[in-house]
């Protein structure tokens, strides 16, 4: 069982959900498909959807909601 990393392509502020009153895109332990959105990065007054980019059985987030992230920072790990 191997783990793959999902990195943020952008610096900005990470959000787990599309708005504060809806559930997060993915919870820890959820399965992910490559095209699934796992979060949003807010930068320059726009929100960019972050796709998983990989398929996997279980996702674990390493960055909290509303936490600042840098480009290239690992935001989640995915078990294959």
């Amino acid at each position, binding site marked *: 069982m191997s783990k793959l990393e999902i990195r943020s392509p952008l610096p900005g502020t990470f959000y787990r959900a599309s708005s504060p009153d809806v559930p997060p895109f993915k919870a820890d332990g959820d399965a992910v498909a490559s095209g699934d959105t796992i979060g949003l990065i807010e*930068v*320059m007054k726009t929100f960019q959807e972050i796709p998983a980019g990989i398929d996997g059985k279980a996702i674990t987030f390493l960055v909290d909601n509303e936490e600042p992230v840098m480009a*290239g920072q690992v935001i989640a790990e995915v078990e294959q």
Partner: protein
Amino acid sequence: MAIKVLHHGLATTVQDLGRPGYFHLGIPVGGAMDRLAMRAANLLVGNDEGAAGLEAVFMGPKLEFTEDALVAVTGADMPAKVDGVVQPGWTAFKVKAGQVLSFDFLKSGARIYIAVSGGIDVPVALGSRSTYPIGALGGYKGRPLAPGDELPVGAGSLASEGRALAEEYRRKPGTPAALRVLPGLYWDRLTDEAKDNFFADEWKVAPEADRMGYRFRGGRKLSFVERKQPFGAGSDPSNIVDSCYPYGSIQVPGGTEPIILHRDAVSGGGYFMVGTVISADMDLIGQLQPHTPARFVKVTMEEALAARAERAGLLERLRASLN
């Protein structure tokens, strides 16, 4: 010769050195946020300094070349790749017809400048090829690039590949970034305590920062001297009777979050300005990522002029080094 846009990155625009002369009509100066990096990229591929290139912020585009070209990428540290092979930054390299230029993750800085021999040959609008997206002016159809766009490229000269810019010209912001500021016309609106706090506090680049304005937060709220509201000014103590906004001026709406007006700024409005970032430090702002710590450093007019002369000297040496 054309470049096909396979992916646009986050916000990639055609930019040159800008269109000065129209700010009084509300058309911003525009052009590269880091003009030294733009100039250097052009010189490395044998272009005029003022040729149009691409500015990409935080995330690089993916571009397919239809003919051979010489390319240089300057500014932020974001490794360029040709068909997956990493190329050195601040160095001219060849891209052959059919090859794809893409980029790795951003490592430091914020904006890269991509120059192509011959320059991006979009129509000139008000004296410049720079894109001003809010006004749908200049650049490629007045907007940031999108997948499927085909960028026309001019005829290039025969500069040689492998030419690199010496390390000393590759300026990077310190930590915290130090931005030198000349206090301005409305400086007397602040209390003595606020004047001290503005320069003493550490600020951080806000994620909203863009080509129009670089917003900062994290410092203490500024307090204002009591006054009778002037005729024509808004009721907030940070309001003034509408005035011209210089490029580089720092407004602080409500006294909370300083905003440095940059290349695509509005030209006037009703917020007081504490001062103006000196011209020598404006390029540096274009390389600040969100959440980067920054300090404002108070300078005198003499110091600002000396810094400008020093910057002009550096540019002269840079030009000579590539001749």
